[in-house]
């Protein structure tokens, strides 16, 4: 046998194989999953929607790069998370949002929703919702869908429900709601597109189905109870499922990794809580669409839910 050449072998602890996913891969998958809804938004709202989405993504990336520079840290912009945050934030805005609102909200999402907690994974909140909440509280009139979208034929069903009651809601046709013929967050109301993208993520195992199932079940059951109680005041569950950001929140926002629990039972409870809170805010709260605040509240409860944990293997 001839002598073996000296080789520099890699020596490492197992595993020696990886399932192949990466942060960047997952973020690209999420962006792909958002494309159908984005395309439907451009189709419905025209170039305005494209403007808002592009602006939000651009500002998000620049803000993250700037924060990295200020914090003297190697930049992680390459993992595409900032694009996801920017686009998610844009999905919640009215298409008429002025440039400064989109830019400020997107920058706030990244700076206050993500970067001040350290690198990706540190934030206890779903980042785009932080920016949305700041804008909604600071500039209610600019964020108000009905007031800013008077030029469109479409109406905002949740706004009409909140302000004038169930009888005033003009769009009740399930099919037109499903295909996004309504006002709301520019991408979030493209229910068909959001659902298609969300199913893609669940089937490809990029997100677990537990949180969306819990969320939608929470919305359905709570809305159904109210509807049973008084069908003339409270709309049926299907109306709630197909309006506002319920679908988008359940599939894209509540499933955000760091701000949601990791185990099955806490995930289910987290989803249920966000779903129930959504309907409670819609019925009793001051805001027409309860989803963003419901998810932020559920985010706060994540550490509490995480305390529900099984006994480790064989531990006594």
């Amino acid at each position, binding site marked *: 046998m001839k002598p*073996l050449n000296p*080789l520099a072998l890699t*020596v490492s602890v*197992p595993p020696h*194989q990886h399932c192949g996913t990466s942060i960047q891969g997952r973020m690209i998958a999420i962006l792909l999953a958002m494309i159908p809804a984005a395309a439907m938004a451009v189709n419905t709202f025209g170039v305005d929607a494209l403007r808002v989405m592009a602006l939000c993504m651009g500002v998000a990336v620049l803000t993250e790069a700037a924060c990295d520079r200020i914090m003297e840290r190697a930049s992680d912009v390459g993992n595409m998370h900032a694009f996801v945050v920017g686009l998610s934030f844009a999905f919640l805005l009215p298409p008429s949002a002025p440039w400064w609102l989109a830019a400020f909200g997107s920058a706030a999402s990244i700076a206050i929703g993500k970067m001040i907690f350290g690198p990706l994974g540190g934030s206890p909140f779903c980042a785009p919702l932080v920016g949305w909440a700041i804008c909604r509280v600071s500039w209610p009139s600019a964020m108000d869908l009905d007031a800013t979208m008077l030029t469109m034929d479409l109406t905002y069903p949740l706004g009409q429900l909140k302000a004038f009651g169930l009888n005033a809601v003009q769009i009740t046709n399930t099919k037109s709601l499903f295909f996004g013929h309504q006002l709301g967050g520019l991408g979030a109301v493209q229910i068909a597109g959001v659902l298609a993208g969300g199913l893609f993520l669940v089937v490809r195992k990029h997100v677990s189905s537990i949180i969306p199932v819990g969320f939608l079940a929470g919305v359905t059951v709570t809305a159904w109870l109210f509807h049973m109680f008084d069908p003339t005041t409270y709309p049926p569950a299907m109306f709630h499922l197909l309006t506002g950001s319920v679908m988008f929140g359940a599939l894209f926002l509540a499933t955000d990794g760091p701000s949601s629990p990791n185990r099955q039972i806490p995930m289910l409870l987290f989803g249920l809580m966000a779903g129930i809170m959504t309907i409670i805010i819609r019925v009793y709260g001051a805001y027409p669409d309860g989803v963003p605040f419901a998810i932020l509240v559920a985010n706060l409860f994540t550490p509490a839910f995480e305390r529900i944990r099984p006994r480790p*293997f064989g*531990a006594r």
Partner: protein
Amino acid sequence: MNNLMKNSPPQVELALVRHCALVTCGQQVRCGETLATSNSPERGDIHAPFPGKVLHVDSYRIRLSREKGETVPLASLDGLSGPEIRSRLAELGADLAPAGEVDALIINAVDAEPSVCSRKQLLADHAETLRAGIKALVRAYCPGSVVLALRQDSPNTLDELEISYVGGHYPAGLDPMVAKAVTGVEASPYAVVVGLETVHHTGMIVETGLPVSRTMVTLGDTGRLVSLGTPVGALVEEQGETVRDGDRIVLGGVLQGMTAASPGQGVDRSTTAVTVVKNPAPVAEDTACVGCGECVRHCPARLDPAMITSYAEFGDYEKAAAEHVDVCFECGLCGYYCLAHRPMLQYIRLAKSELAKARSLEEVAS
């Protein structure tokens, strides 16, 4: 000639893992002579697989070259039972852990990892040796029952034994999971799991009266008996693979196996396979946890690897202990699924070893 070379390499390297070398450089040894004694109760001693001369000794390896020579006198296990036969078998190179009262002796015939088939091959080709090994193990452990854990689709079995079928999906074939599947109790102190290769080693000791000198190794898609200490580089070359800088030669499966430090490193008794993992191999990166939760949902021990590794990363080993890091049986799935490619098992092993160090210091102090 080729066949002869395959079965008996001219030179072997025997890895020492908490073993104490008894030989010195240049010493002539007989076939079967004890080269190093084990310092850990669950591991057996190390012996010369053929007569020869010791070329090199350090704390990690003994190298031996073949020369003509004698064989040690045959050992007899007659009249021994219980702990005596167990320690005698360990002196002859069987890796048998000591145990107290044993309710169930579980023979694990499941190849846990998908790319490994050494146990399947043993069951197909060496049933008689396995039976002899099981008889000796029954004498050593005096168990209430003997159960053979098999995959559902296993074509071979050992008829006289009670069979328990185990799922084929990793990590169902790992010892703790098999023990749970058979006894219904997690980490039962009354169950002993012995891997089929160790049963085979024991059987060979009983049949030949000599220490263990060969083991079943998966090469490609078949298993083959190779001499202990055979350089892994030679085995890889035989399969027609070329190893380049940066590749890994893995002893065992890709999820749990150990990487060889050099192509000269020898096959040891726990080696179930020799495979090459080519570049671009997944290299763990120094990244922070992104909180995706994949490791938590995949952990068969129901631990929170994300928290454990984050504690270990910052040196807070006591908190890792509070998260039950000791329960981890190192299946490797957390690192396999980690979105951020964190060195999960490295951190877990770091925490375990630091905790063990702290414990031994406490014991010395008290």
